[in-house]
């Protein structure tokens, strides 16, 4: 009887412990060499260490691959080192930004901020005096106003692109893209020249809403379009096959199916404009007092609160206040992003 030899499954391409140890020791060697080079040359501090570490480690790995394999493999290793460098350089700012805002911002946060405005306070007052109630209310009113204007327009644009698909679908898609590149200051100037100077002659929260909606419409339109495209066309065909008109199909089948997608579009639109500063500096008047009336009078906003605290203060309290405002803003963006992700479960941006 011959025994059948069953070959043991093996994965020759997998990284073995030995190879891992070799790479690890190379990196450790690079750390040591980088330390030495920083000590004995003009290179300076953490940055100098990082730079010399990167070049030494890359060089060592290159030589190792060249010795073990060939030039192709060594070049390949070079690319992966540089790709790694790219992602690290991309991530350093985000880590730095978030940690700066949290570390500097928590000093500028106080529960009483939520109940007071800055009408009688200067930005240099201690954090316990004055507050950002007016800013939160103003931002909410303006963002809500912008949402009321942008949501219908954005969704109609998305419906035109996905449901009607008329002759103009391509140009319109192009224009929506172009609109998303309109600089925010131009949106402010546009509202000034078209509404403020000829019609209302007064800066107000409503003008802020109009300016923000110009920036919000493309975001909502693009996200909504993407979400509507995800609805399988079977659903549309089923609706039409049951004898429904296109209007009934869209309102009864497509839009309900895309509900969470549309909410995502709203959230991303809000996240896009919640920190917009330039247009509000031009058109909302930048108030310090609580103002619930969007049609008249200067209206405060969170970005303006931060802007004013940074630029007009100069004391430690003012900077703490500004970073505190930034922390609140950042918290809003995190929450909005988390919500969008939770709702759609897919890429957002």
């Amino acid at each position: 009887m011959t025994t059948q030899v069953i070959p043991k499954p093996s994965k020759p391409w997998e990284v073995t412990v030995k190879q891992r140890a070799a790479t690890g020791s190379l990196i450790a060697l690079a750390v040591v060499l980088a330390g030495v080079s920083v000590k004995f040359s003009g290179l300076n501090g953490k940055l100098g260490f990082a730079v010399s570490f990167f070049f030494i480690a890359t060089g060592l790995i290159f030589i190792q691959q060249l010795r073990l394999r060939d030039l192709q493999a060594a070049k390949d290793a070079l690319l992966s080192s540089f790709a790694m460098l790219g992602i690290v350089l991309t991530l350093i700012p985000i880590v730095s930004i978030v940690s700066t805002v949290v570390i500097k911002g928590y000093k500028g946060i106080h529960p009483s901020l939520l109940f007071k405005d800055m009408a009688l306070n200067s930005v240099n007052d201690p954090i316990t005096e004055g507050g950002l109630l007016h800013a939160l209310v103003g931002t909410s009113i303006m963002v809500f106003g912008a949402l009321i204007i942008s949501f219908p327009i954005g969704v109609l644009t998305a419906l035109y692109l996905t449901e009607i698909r008329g002759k103009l679908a391509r140009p319109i898609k192009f224009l929506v893209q172009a609109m998303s590149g309109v600089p925010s200051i131009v949106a402010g100037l546009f509202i000034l020249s078209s509404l403020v100077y000829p019609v209302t002659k007064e800066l107000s929260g409503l003008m802020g809403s109009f300016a923000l909606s110009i920036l919000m419409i493309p975001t909502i339109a693009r996200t909504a379009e993407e979400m509507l495209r995800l609805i399988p066309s079977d659903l549309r065909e089923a609706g039409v096959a049951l004898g429904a008109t296109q209007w009934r199909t869209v309102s009864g089948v497509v839009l309900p199916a895309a509900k969470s997608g549309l909410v995502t579009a709203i959230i991303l639109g809000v996240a896009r404009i919640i920190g917009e500063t330039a247009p509000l500096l031009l058109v909302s008047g930048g108030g310090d007092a609580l103002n619930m009336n969007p049609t008249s009078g200067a209206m405060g906003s969170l970005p303006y609160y931060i802007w004013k605290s940074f630029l007009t203060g100069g004391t430690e309290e003012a900077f703490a206040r500004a970073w505190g405002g930034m922390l609140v803003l950042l918290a809003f963006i995190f929450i909005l992003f988390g919500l969008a992700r939770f709702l759609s479960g897919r890429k957002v941006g």
Partner: protein
Amino acid sequence: MENQSAAIPAPREITTKPRRSDQVFRGIVTLGGMASLVILGLIAFFLSIKGFHILSEEKFSFITESRWEVLTDENGDIADSTLGIGAMLVGTFLSALIAISVGVPIAVLSALYLTFYARGAVKKILISLIDLMAAFPSLLYGFWGFFVFMASAEYWAKLLNKYLGFLPFFDVPAPIFERSPFIAGLVLAIMIIPIVTSISREIFDQTPLDRIQAAYALGASKLAMIRAVVIPYGRGGVVGGAMLGLGRAMGETVAVYTVLNVVYQINWQVLFGAGGNVASLILLKFGEAGPYEVDALMAAGLILFILTLIVNALADLLINRFGSKGK
């Protein structure tokens, strides 16, 4: 029999003409779809009617002249004015060019990492972090750049000046390295990296899998595969993404205003602390501007609007032309 035949309903008229409700629906949606066209048209229209008389008075020198002076007589009437955005246009291009020449290579490398090296949970987390970063407001980048990033950027600027100072654009007339176009460009680079990374990653993701596998099957290493398949396939899209970043960097207001020392002069020496861009000029001058100057700012806004529109149009063309081929 006769009664029965009378009960047979008249056959339904078969037509491809949409019902009344659908006609209304289509009309409304089409109207809504035109909104972007209408809004862009209105922006151009209103900025032109406010800014046109400035452009016709200053003529071509509005673009080439680099002074911004309004002289008023004792009645407050304008006696003489020289308004030109030449210096600011130079500054706009300069800082945006620095931004893309630093930002795009980094963004493309990290997009390569995300597409071809990162796996599983790490990839997911990195992608959402970068998307999150794209949503940070420019205010945040501006003040972070000013308070945190400036110190190290100044150190790099000094290094560049020390070792490459013989190149004319790395030279400085006086040792002032703070708040230079170089630093503003770096902050803009950090702002556009997430955007360009996202677009490049999407383009790389669309590389046809069969061609990638064909390259591997022929024995290509990752580098060889990327050079032979991914780069030729994605080049146009990546250039488009870079253009989009350029448009964003050109129109940026708040971040440039906070980081850059806005001075009215043409400054080609990127390490020297003086410069500006059109958007930051508008913000700077707006507070103190009289009606005549406001109109001039509208004209500046119009030029900025047209510039960004052209850049964005090119970007969109490139991304769509090259981006969706493999889908």
